[in-house]
């Protein structure tokens, strides 16, 4: 079924900045005068847990994306990319950070966990762009800007103009970090542009 609007699911680990990323996309929609709906994880679930932000660009109805109807999945962690991969539609695209943080339970309870090459192989059935957002963020001037790097990489797929996204970055990040984040967005956009699709 073709769902109304363009559905973006951002996933990661509590504390990685999924909420700021969702704010930037929402702000870009306001700049372009488009409707937008979203939903996200708050409260205790944020404490290092798996988190998700739903954004429905041109959305008019409910805020939640149904499984297998996301047009774009942006994953700040590779394990979370796999966990939420069933949300992606058959034609959907995935932008994933190669970085992988294993849950503490893996160590405390000796649970088997997939490693990077295995996950990448499993995700190959989707249109995947995997990049080292942590390294690119470091190069941009702050490891905290990895979320904006990911948006830059995703900007090729998003139905929003890069100018609106950049303006939304400027409006949404703390004033002192605008320069770093603009750089992070541009470096991410470059990395996303050279991804094989």
């Amino acid at each position, binding site marked *: 079924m073709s769902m109304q609007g363009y559905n973006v699911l951002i996933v990661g680990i509590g504390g990685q900045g999924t909420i700021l990323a969702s704010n930037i996309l929402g702000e870009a929609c306001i700049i372009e005068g488009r409707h937008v709906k979203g939903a996200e994880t708050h409260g205790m679930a944020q404490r290092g847990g798996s988190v998700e932000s739903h954004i429905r660009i041109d959305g008019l109805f409910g805020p*939640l994306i*149904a499984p297998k109807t996301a047009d774009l999945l942006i994953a700040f962690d590779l394990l979370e990319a796999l966990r939420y991969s069933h949300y992606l539609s058959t034609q959907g695209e995935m932008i994933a950070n190669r970085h992988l943080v294993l849950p503490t339970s893996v160590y405390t309870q000796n649970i088997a966990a997939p490693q990077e090459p295995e996950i990448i192989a499993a995700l190959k059935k989707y249109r995947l762009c995997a990049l080292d957002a942590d390294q690119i963020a470091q190069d941009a001037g702050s490891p905290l800007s990895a979320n904006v790097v990911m948006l830059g990489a995703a900007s090729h797929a998003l139905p929003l103009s890069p100018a609106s996204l950049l303006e939304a970055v400027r409006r949404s990040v703390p004033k002192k970090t605008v320069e770093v984040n603009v750089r992070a967005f541009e470096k991410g956009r470059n990395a996303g542009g050279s991804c094989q699709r």
Partner: protein
Amino acid sequence: MVEQGWTMEERYLLGNEAIAHACIEAPVDFVTGYPGTPSSEVIDVLRSQEKRSSYIEWSVNEKVALENALAAAWCGLRALCTMKHVGLNVAADPLMTSAYTGVTGGFVIMSADDPFAHSSQNEQDTRCYAHFAKVPCLDPSTIQEAHDMVRDAFALSEEFCLPVIFRPTTRICHSKGDVILGSPVVSNRKAEFKKDPRQYVVIPAHTRILHKKLNEKQSVIKKRLVELGYNTCEIKGKWLVVTSGIAAAYVREILPDNVSFMKIGAYPIDESWLKSFVRKHDRVIVIEELSPEVEDQVRQVAGDIPVYGKKDGYVPLEGELSLPVVAAIMVKAGIIPQNPCPDAVPVPNLPPRPPILCAGCLHRATFYAIRRVFNDAIYPSDIGCYTLGLQLGVVDTTICMGASITVASGIAKSGEPRDVVCSIGDSTFLHTGIQGLLNAVYNNANITVVILDNRITAMTGHQPNPNTGHTACGIESNPVSLEAISRACGVSFVETVDPYDVPSMLEAFRNAKARKGVKVVIARQQCVISARRAGIKRGRFSVALDVCTSCGTCIRFGCPAIEKGEEDKARINDLCSGCSVCAQICPAGAIQREVKR
């Protein structure tokens, strides 16, 4: 009223931010509440305004909050009181009778429901409370509607002279969307309490009359809510879908053109209005979250018309709805031929990533010491970040705020022979823990009470409490002494220790274990998130691989900063906050603070 600069503005906002903005447009004069997901951001937004014309407090609990706000509404001010659904249980006593006394200033009680219990202990439905208390209830289905309803609710409350309950759910409070906002308004209302004992002193002779008046208001309210257009019905065919709240958004997305659509946004529902629309159809299905509140009323007026809903298994009685769930309901009822949402199966057997106590959290260190000293004990606990101690095996019970101490004394008094050690956070202790402590001491229970004192209400987003030292709006205030409260309750053994000092913690617990009666150990250390925000930096720790014996002690400690590396030796990652507890518990002495070169 003085209007400020701008008018209509469109912004991308969290539901709770839009609700807060609506309060500024109303404008509200007096705001109280107790934090609780998903309601907390409303006051957090209001209290962070640079300029404000309202009084704002985080109260010690919901009953206190509601009574404070009620008093302000008795003085003619516009008052808001916020809480989560279970908070309304705590505030239920004043709520029920405030419907009798009524109000003069507009009084809005926001009680946020949490279908699927994303961050709650149950899935109760605030609409039932509104029904029970005989007060109007507004139930938004979109963020824009939430904004508009709250803005108008104060005037509605003044018109009916009754508190109005505003009941958003998680998918409203924590959803985002483009919202059209009005102008902020500065209030110049002056409080004046007009003495009227027949209204405000609910002795039997007065309350009997007040109850009659409340009942007489009901039909007026129902008619007025119809006029105001909160409840709507579009007739399109012989099938009628009745919805409320966020379910309306899911239904709308997939509703065929030839099916009628009714949305309930305000209660009590006018029966004659409801009947007139229901009776125009051959079949009706009611799709709502939580209790069958609308369904019950539809069934009462439907006559011979078949009604589908929760009572015959078409709609789930628990959990939250979603587009795929609503679509499946509509397929089952025969409204749509097939589910438009594709089947999707998550990748199986991935390691779960539940929320976890932060690296360097004082609670983990305290729980570790409790386990070391009381290895075969019963551990009642409470509501807060520390409920995550479940993963560490030191949380045996939680029911509601403050129930750690009472459950502990109940278990001990039952004759259970094992030690009983309960844990409760500072904010929860001040919320409803003190009475339990007083009761346990007075009735000679044998328990150890551990107050996990991080000086803040952390889980809901770091709201200050009377233990923090400043009010909601940042005004300095003397922090209460938990030691003095404990002693005043009659506790003679009160010890305060630093959870980062493992030997002292162990000694305090050993001393407590050796004594009879109620023992209080206050484990005091700043929340690691507050500490980071305050700029406190402690050096990171690392593992000397040649000394590490791969014994796994630090791994089992469960800190997210500690990983298992090569040869099962420990490795400390970037999350390390420098609390030093792992270094103190390492039997080989392999963990040391990193020396900066």
